[in-house]
């Protein structure tokens, strides 16, 4: 006979010898105190190892198990637990072997005392109350040794294993689940082997999930690749569990220097230190895209913690403070919509949700999840251009805030500009839709137009002036014929048809000064630039016109955007003023303008009062 008996020290040794002599093999099951004292001890892991190390070498016709394998507390019913592990351990060759439980108890009793009794109502499970060799022999002959049976129909549908109460264990299981599914889809074998030795892989609930939602190895292997380039930083405190390998595979088309991982160094650190470590790496590595795990520290798992207190959330906020254009993809198992909304409000740029067991009911879910990962990373790589934009915006804001020009009008200009730039940023965010890009461009152009309306930049009237440093340069005189009503202007700059730019030359014009004229005049007389072609102003103006007039097929490029930003930096910087081109021209002395506005000018009464006080 080829049966197996699993027993403990309560079972008679003579009985065991007789069994070995007549019926097959016997193996003793006991848990050492040393194993029990390990902080990571779990019954599930111990049992899994026991089965795979000792009993996986051959297939038996039947396995005899007592209801209880505990030496002292019968009601633990550890024999029954072992039965579940036999059925659900994927790698165990005796998964379907008929199991014959023995003991005085009847099923009614067991079900009254414990919730583990469902197994007795599944196929290939038998019970006998008489512990004797003769009876055992009889039993083996009686049972129908149907070795393989449809596990799902005859077992999985009858039993129900409950998930762990512990939030941390639950997270571990979901985490491991996601890792295994994705590793399989990406054909990463080394990750699969890890799980068997880990605590999670041996947990009964996890095995149950695996059996219920088997990973379909025949599905088409994933063949995506990232299309865009950039620096990606992966932040996860459980990299070594398999995430590093998964993400390395996903980003494998990028050069090694463009991919960075951080997370193994978080162990034992405070949340504050973790935040610092991540930000440090973001800056040093010049990350364009960050895939950021939400929960990076134990404390993030405490039930009832609000999203704002979670380490990943705080890191997200800090990254966005550095540069709004850095793309942050939140990586999490959360399915709570209010958390996702909060993250979105904090400017997260994308989400990768870890697959959880419930999702895997749908066979295609895994492949779709992975496809989504590639897509979102690609999109964010493309969008990381916004980094540059944010830097420009930040620089411009600093520049214009630093400068002190005419008080009242200028501070309004500053706030309008900031607002325009912010809007431009949000418009550029929608990279994929060209019309938003174009609108963003217009928004930037708006700043130019706003700028030339400032009083001490370009004064428009019958006499139009350009201001440079403290000088006023007359560039245009209105020679309108009041009688005939025709418009006529005398200008100091003239449009050269060949070169397509304005040049210093007296001429008459019938056209009102438009933005193109004004900026050209500014470039020549305020910034001392003669070859204004270098400033790309023509291109900028053309782009603007094309977009504004709704020309078909016009899409501003990233280069165009950079051009206009560079241009803004040029014209908004008062230090770039250069008077080299204004020497020969009519200048009205700005004695009046030289006069700095004093309190006496603004509020003479107050000035008098102050003078009195000084005297006193």
């Amino acid at each position: 006979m080829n049966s197996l008996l699993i027993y403990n020290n309560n079972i008679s040794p003579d009985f065991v010898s007789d069994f070995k002599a007549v019926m097959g093999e016997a193996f003793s099951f006991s848990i050492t105190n040393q194993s029990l004292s390990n902080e990571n001890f779990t019954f599930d892991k111990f049992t899994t190892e026991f089965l795979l190390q000792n009993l996986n070498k051959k297939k038996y016709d039947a396995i005899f198990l007592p209801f209880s394998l505990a030496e002292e507390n019968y009601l633990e019913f550890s024999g029954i637990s072992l039965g579940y592990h036999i059925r659900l351990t994927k790698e165990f060759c005796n998964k379907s072997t008929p199991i014959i439980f023995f003991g005085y108890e009847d099923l009614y009793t067991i079900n009254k005392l414990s919730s583990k009794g469902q197994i007795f109502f599944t196929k290939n499970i038998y019970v006998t109350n008489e512990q004797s060799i003769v009876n055992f022999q009889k039993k083996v002959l009686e049972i129908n040794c149907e070795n393989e049976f449809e596990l799902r129909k005859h077992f999985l549908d009858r039993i129900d294993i409950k998930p762990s109460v512990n939030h941390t264990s639950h997270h571990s299981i979901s985490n491991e689940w996601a890792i295994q599914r994705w590793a399989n889809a990406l054909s990463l074998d080394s990750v699969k082997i890890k799980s068997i030795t880990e605590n999670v892989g041996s947990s009964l609930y996890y095995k149950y999930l695996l059996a219920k939602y088997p990973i379909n190895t025949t599905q088409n292997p994933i063949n995506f690749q990232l299309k865009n380039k950039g620096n990606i930083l992966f932040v996860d405190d459980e990299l070594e569990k398999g995430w590093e390998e998964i993400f390395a595979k996903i980003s494998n088309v990028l050069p090694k220097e463009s991919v960075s991982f951080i997370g193994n160094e978080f162990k034992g650190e405070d949340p504050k230190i973790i935040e610092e470590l991540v930000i440090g790496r973001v800056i040093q590595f010049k990350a364009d895209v960050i895939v950021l795990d939400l929960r990076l520290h134990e404390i993030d798992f405490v039930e009832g913690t609000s999203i704002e207190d979670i380490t990943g959330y705080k890191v997200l906020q800090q990254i966005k403070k550095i540069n709004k254009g850095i793309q942050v993809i939140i990586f999490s198992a959360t399915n709570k919509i209010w958390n996702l909304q909060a993250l979105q409000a904090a400017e997260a740029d994308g989400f990768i949700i870890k697959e959880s067991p419930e999702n895997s009911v749908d066979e295609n879910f895994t492949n779709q999840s992975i496809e989504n990962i590639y897509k979102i990373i690609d999109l964010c790589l493309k969008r990381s251009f916004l980094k540059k934009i944010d830097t420009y915006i930040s620089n411009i804001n600093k520049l214009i805030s630093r400068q002190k020009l005419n008080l009242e009008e200028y501070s309004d200009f500053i706030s309008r500009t900031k607002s325009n730039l912010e809007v431009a940023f949000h418009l550029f965010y929608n990279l994929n839709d060209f019309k938003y890009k174009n609108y963003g461009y217009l928004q930037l152009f708006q700043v130019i137009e706003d700028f030339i309306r400032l009083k001490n930049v370009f004064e428009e009237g019958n006499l139009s002036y350009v201001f440079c440093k403290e000088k006023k340069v007359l560039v245009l005189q209105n020679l309108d014929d009041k009688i005939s009503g025709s418009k006529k202007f005398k200008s100091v700059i003239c449009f050269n048809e060949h070169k397509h730019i304005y040049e210093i030359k007296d001429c008459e014009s019938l056209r009102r000064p438009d933005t193109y004229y004004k900026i050209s005049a500014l470039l020549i007389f305020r910034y001392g630039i003669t070859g204004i072609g270098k400033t790309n102003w023509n291109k900028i103006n053309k782009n603007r016109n094309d977009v504004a007039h709704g020309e078909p097929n016009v899409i501003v490029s990233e280069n165009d955007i950079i051009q206009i930003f560079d241009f803004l930096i040029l014209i908004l910087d008062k230090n770039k003023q250069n008077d080299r081109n204004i020497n020969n021209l009519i200048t009205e002395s700005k004695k009046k303008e030289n006069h700095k506005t004093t309190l006496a000018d603004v509020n003479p009464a107050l000035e008098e009062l102050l003078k009195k006080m000084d005297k006193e």
Partner: protein
Amino acid sequence: MKILLLEDRPERQKKFISDKIKSWENIFISGQIFMPEVNDCKVIIEQINNYSFALNQTFKLLIVHRSALKSSGISHLSSICKEKKIKLIYFSGGISQTIYNSQDFEQINLNSTDFYSDLLIPFLQNFITNDSISVLEIFHTEWKISYMMLYRQLLRNLELTEEDYDLDSDRSYILRRIEKIENVIGKMKLEELHKSIQQKINYL
């Protein structure tokens, strides 16, 4: 004080006592249970993990959240409990199988749902009055059934074991296990055992 209870996740306990606040607070009136606040609790746990924890009171029962301990803490508590004959209850959300052991000292590992059950408050009350009760009483209302079932398993296996007249005979060891049980629930024959167990089951 007789009982030391170390729970470093107060939210979980709050949930449990939400509908039994009065009876929960009652058990503390006797002054026999010491349950430090979260911060103090964490300090004690760190001391346990560092081997610097010393029991200066005459506790008879320690109840500790197992996941808070490292292997060093577990072994430190084991030596304390062994030396001073203190009983030990470990609970944790990650424990999927109850394990009881009384080799060096009485200890039981429980899932936290099984710990925070209807049995907890009565158990603590009982222990305060009579600290010789077994920690098994926290595991199941009918903990005696556990002994009885073990008893009959041993009786059957004693039958199957031949006498061999040696000092360390297998039979003598089974007999000793049986004696231990009889010290708790009294001597019974197999028939009697079957009846008692059946009776108890029917009234569960």
